């Protein structure tokens, strides 16, 4: 074990796989000699050259569609969007082509394409560089959607993504990219399967489900509330497609109360989905109405005071937990 950053963890997973799988290539803007805006491919261009670390024109639809055709014919493309917001220019290729190709070919084609990008509000990046949007992709049949919260999970899930024959969206919150955490030594080949939630903290009184940066904030809150004698169980689904409801429902059975904390929008969102499934399968375990705390349903503003007002904070998470406990 050593402590490395989230970005270093995924970069290690990428480098080790590129060394053994010559069908992997990466496309994106500035992922070649520059090593990626966020350092996601740093040092790889020197090893693998311009075709496998392939800088692109600013043509998201074009290179996503190209990668679709590449994945259909035997290679394993990785699209590095830099900011995940840029994926929106390629939605037709994603929803109508990439997500549907295995189905339309009756399973005779696979779609091993990894789409990664940085998400999240929190650095005055404003509304074209702060989006997350992952519930939209979980809505569509065909995608795997991964939102890791720490370097250990990031590496283990990235390894699984690099072997997946399904299209995977791998979303990295900007504000945890430089977070260091314990990761096994490079010769340890652990991997984390999709659809397996992590119980990030055990507790008795309430279940809180959250992802990515919000998971970090929830853990901070849980630690503080423990001093008051409030015992919070924190569940990190890690992937929202597939979504491990069994772990969430098992936790609810224990605590009787559930809150979903998420940075993305509430309407038709991840909170709505989890709570609907709680109502369907865990209604009898509820001692209080299930609750959700989401980011504001608004484009992302620039100014720090406005920006802070549109995302869940330790204060609002604490209050939401108290509200559920008071029911």
């Amino acid at each position, binding site marked *: 074990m050593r402590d490395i950053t989230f970005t270093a963890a995924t970069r290690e997973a990428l480098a080790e796989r590129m060394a053994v799988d010559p069908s992997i290539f990466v496309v994106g803007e500035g992922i070649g000699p520059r090593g990626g805006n966020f350092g996601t491919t740093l040092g790889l261009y020197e090893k693998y050259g311009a075709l496998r670390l392939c800088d692109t024109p600013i043509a998201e639809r074009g290179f996503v*569609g190209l990668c*679709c*055709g590449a994945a259909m014919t035997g290679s394993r493309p990785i699209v590095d969007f830099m900011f995940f917001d840029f994926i929106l220019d390629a939605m*037709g290729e994603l929803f109508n082509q990439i997500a549907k190709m295995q189905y339309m070919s009756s399973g005779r084609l696979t779609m091993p394409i990894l789409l990664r990008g940085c998400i999240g509000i929190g650095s005055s990046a404003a509304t074209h560089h702060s989006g997350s949007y992952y519930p939209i992709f979980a809505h569509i049949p065909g995608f795997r959607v991964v939102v890791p919260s720490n370097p250990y999970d990031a590496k283990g899930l990235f390894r699984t993504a690099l072997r997946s024959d399904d299209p995977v969206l791998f979303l990295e919150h900007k504000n945890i990219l430089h977070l260091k955490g314990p990761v096994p030594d490079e010769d340890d080949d652990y991997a984390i399967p999709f659809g397996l939630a992590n119980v990030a903290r055990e507790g008795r009184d309430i279940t809180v489900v959250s992802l990515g940066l919000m998971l970090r904030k929830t853990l901070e809150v849980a630690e503080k509330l423990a001093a008051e004698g409030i015992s919070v169980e924190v569940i990190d689904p890690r992937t929202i497609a597939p979504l491990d409801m069994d772990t969430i429902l098992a936790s609810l059975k224990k605590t009787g109360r559930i809150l979903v904390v998420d940075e993305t929008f509430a309407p038709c969102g991840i909170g709505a989905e989890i709570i609907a499934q709680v109502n369907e399968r865990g209604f009898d375990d509820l001692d209080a109405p299930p609750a959700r705390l989401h980011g504001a349903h608004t484009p992302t503003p620039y100014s720090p005071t406005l920006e802070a007002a549109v995302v869940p904070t330790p204060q609002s998470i604490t209050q939401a937990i108290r509200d559920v406990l008071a029911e």
Partner: protein
Amino acid sequence: MPTKEQSLSLYRTMQVIRQTEEALARSHQAGLIHGACHTYVGEEAIASGVCAHLTHQDAVFSTHRGHGHALAKGVPPRELIAELFGRATGCSRGRGGSMHLFSPEVGMMGTSGIVGPCILQAAGAGFTFKLLNQPHVGVAFFGDGASNNGAFHEGLNLAAIYQLPAIFVCENNQFATEIAITYSTRNPDVWTKAASFGMPGVCVDGNDAGAVWRAAGEAVERARAGGGPTLIECKTYRTRAHAEGMRDGGYRSMEEVEKWKARDPIKLYAAQLTSQGQAASGELDAIAAEVKALVDEAVEFAKASPYPDGATATEHIYA
């Protein structure tokens, strides 16, 4: 020049497409086709002339008017017809219909109900072949309508900057459904747009099978040799309506349709072959008769095929 064997094979492919399309048009009228049916009648020379140079390892990506591409690439008529009949024996097992024809076994990587993506995907196939050092090519067939779509401009640019083994075949039949190419662009000579991307662009008579065969041969040879992509514009015309059952008036004159029917690519090629002494008319008649038996049998096969089990409707979403 193609050999006699190649010429007869080209003629036969055109006959397979024409006769299959005519069988599909009759089947549509008979209510055997559940959804859309866009025929390729009048454009047979293009798919036949291009695919004559391809192997099953070469990857073809096509558009909504894709029956001809599937047939020319090697999908048997019975699998195409069964697909439009919605049967389990169809090339997409009943999941696709006219606009989603898949047969990766022969390198038919799909037709699409969306105009444009095939251009990007053919570039992507070219990327794989270059990355893995394979001597194959990616080929996109698309109409003039796609040439005004961003996918055309992004795809050709990407293929050019990476020098990918890809062929972009624009079938300029002059109408995007009912919108004339002269309305939708101030430069209706699609082939000239290749220059914007630093790529060879050629223009051929899309109703002249020999001309298409020669242009495609050069482009495929160049791509296989590492010389990069080519744009081929084939000027042509569809002589049936946009889709079976649709009106075919108002946006074009019947005189114009008749003028193009007189330039029927199959008749033109038959005349070329006989006048050049490459084939006797009896040989060509025998091919047409052999194809008729094949297509008749294919229709019967499709009619007799079972529908897919509804319980399988959510299979194959994930690997």
